[in-house]
């Protein structure tokens, strides 16, 4: 049984929590751009943490259900409709055979997650179904393809629906434009003036932003280092190339690089950042590793308790 793709939309990708353990051969991880939303999607349906979902960027996606099931929608509000009636994210919906589920245009945020009871059935490549288009790996075909018209998103039919929603307090605020940054890597190579500039300025999300990285436009910052010996790049690393415009490296990032880095955006911060559209304005806030650990634990504890 499956959802049939009637309209593929701008960019809809099958994702799980990512392909780990292969960065040493240069293979990036992939995975959901908004991990918080992804984890809640699976929790709402009692799925495994890593069950495959569809990450829908922007919208314009229409699906037709071929069997009964339960779904959960989390992340952005992309103006979703079920049989032409508006539905809101962060809760579950019962799906009947023949239902039409559509995602239109962003109302709040940029990326929505569609989870299905039991997860979408899809063969993993190297232990994961995460789609990385650049590396032609993962997804429905195993070859890194985005969803296209006629694709079948398979699931196990199930008529046992439970109505659930995410507690209001646990829903992230995508209007929050303060992105937390852990100072690390080469931040000492940025003078205190450069750091002050970085943390006190507005940055605009560039239209050249994608799953690999978010490019930002605004106050230039410069490191005292001309370059560094190429080294591994962690999720969220804020790399500053010669033009002084920061780039936040996200799920589809390259594994190694040689630009100085200001610090690292946390997973929670990266989830908020990934919901911003080109033209949106953000600011960075410094936090300690300690604060990042607490923030993360609080969030995971909320999820675990709710489950």
């Amino acid at each position, binding site marked *: 049984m499956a959802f049939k793709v009637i309209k593929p939309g701008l960019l809809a990708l099958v994702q799980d929590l990512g392909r780990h353990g292969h960065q040493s051969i240069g293979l990036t991880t992939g995975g959901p751009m908004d991990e918080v939303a992804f984890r809640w999607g699976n929790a709402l349906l009692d799925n495994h943490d890593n069950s495959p979902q569809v990450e829908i960027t922007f919208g314009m996606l229409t699906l037709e259900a071929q069997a009964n099931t339960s779904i959960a929608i989390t992340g952005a509000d992309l103006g979703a409709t079920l049989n032409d009636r508006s539905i809101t994210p962060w809760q579950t919906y019962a799906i009947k055979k023949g239902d039409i589920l559509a995602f239109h245009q962003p109302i709040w945020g940029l990326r929505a997650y569609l989870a299905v009871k039991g997860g979408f059935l899809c063969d993993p490549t190297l232990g994961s179904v995460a789609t990385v288009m650049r590396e032609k790996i993962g997804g429905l075909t195993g070859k890194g393809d985005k969803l296209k018209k006629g694709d079948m998103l398979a699931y196990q039919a199930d008529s046992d629906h439970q109505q659930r929603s995410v507690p209001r307090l646990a829903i992230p605020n995508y209007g929050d434009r303060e992105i937390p940054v852990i100072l690390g890597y080469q931040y000492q190579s940025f003078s205190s003036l450069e750091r002050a500039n970085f943390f006190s300025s507005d940055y605009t999300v560039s239209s050249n932003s994608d799953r690999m990285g978010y490019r930002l436009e605004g106050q230039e910052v410069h490191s005292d280092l001309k370059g560094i010996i190429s080294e591994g790049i962690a999720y969220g690393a804020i790399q500053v190339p010669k033009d002084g415009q920061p780039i936040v490296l996200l799920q589809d990032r390259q594994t190694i690089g040689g630009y100085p880095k200001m*610090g690292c955006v946390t997973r929670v911060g990266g989830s908020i950042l990934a919901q911003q559209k080109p033209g949106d304005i953000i600011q960075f806030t410094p936090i300690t590793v300690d604060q990042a650990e607490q923030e993360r634990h609080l969030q995971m504890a909320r999820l675990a308790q709710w489950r």
Partner: protein
Amino acid sequence: MSGENLPNIEMVSNQACLLTFSRVISEATSNYIAQVTQYLVKLEGIVDLVPSYTTLLVVFDDDHYDRFAIFKTIRQTIEAIDPNDFSVKDQREVVIPVYYGKEVGPDIEDVAKHCHLSISEIIQRHSETTYRAYAIGFTPGFAFLGNTPDELHVPRKTTPRLKVPVGSVALAENQTAVYPSVTPGGWQIIGRTPVNLIDWGSENLALIAMGDSVRFEPISRDEFLVQGGQLDGF
């Protein structure tokens, strides 16, 4: 180099730390990083390891370790490495056959001119050197191989090619590499190998691993074709 030479450990996020072994690139540092990587990969709760020239990025499961626990585990693991165990016994030598020449290496004439050598001297110098794989990245299976002999140092191309054919063997500054897949690239292309650098069906996935020694072996056009080499792609 042994356990007494502990790397500097720095948190870069709440899920990753960077081990810096040295400020300069050397074979000894690279060997040591390769060895530490082999030990750390066996630990539970280690999600990913990204070794490079002088550093090792360790990505860990933050349900398993907080920053104190990961520091301690890394220190203990490195201290427990027997310095006498440090040898090149695990190091593999990978031989890559290359069909050199203009037909598949459109930059070889420019390289020869830049280096004031003949094309056959370029081929000889490139293939008589044993290289080390210092880092794997940029694209899956792309190995940064150093050090090329001084006479072969050439700058990157001013304008990178939008598409470099699979198997292209190229030079840039003091490094050489093979392109494992079709990507944009700014290195100077001198030949092509028929061998797959990345094989998703194999256990190791990538032909070259960090720390391997790599040699190039000149082959004829006929041998190249017999081994499955493709001539088109530009």
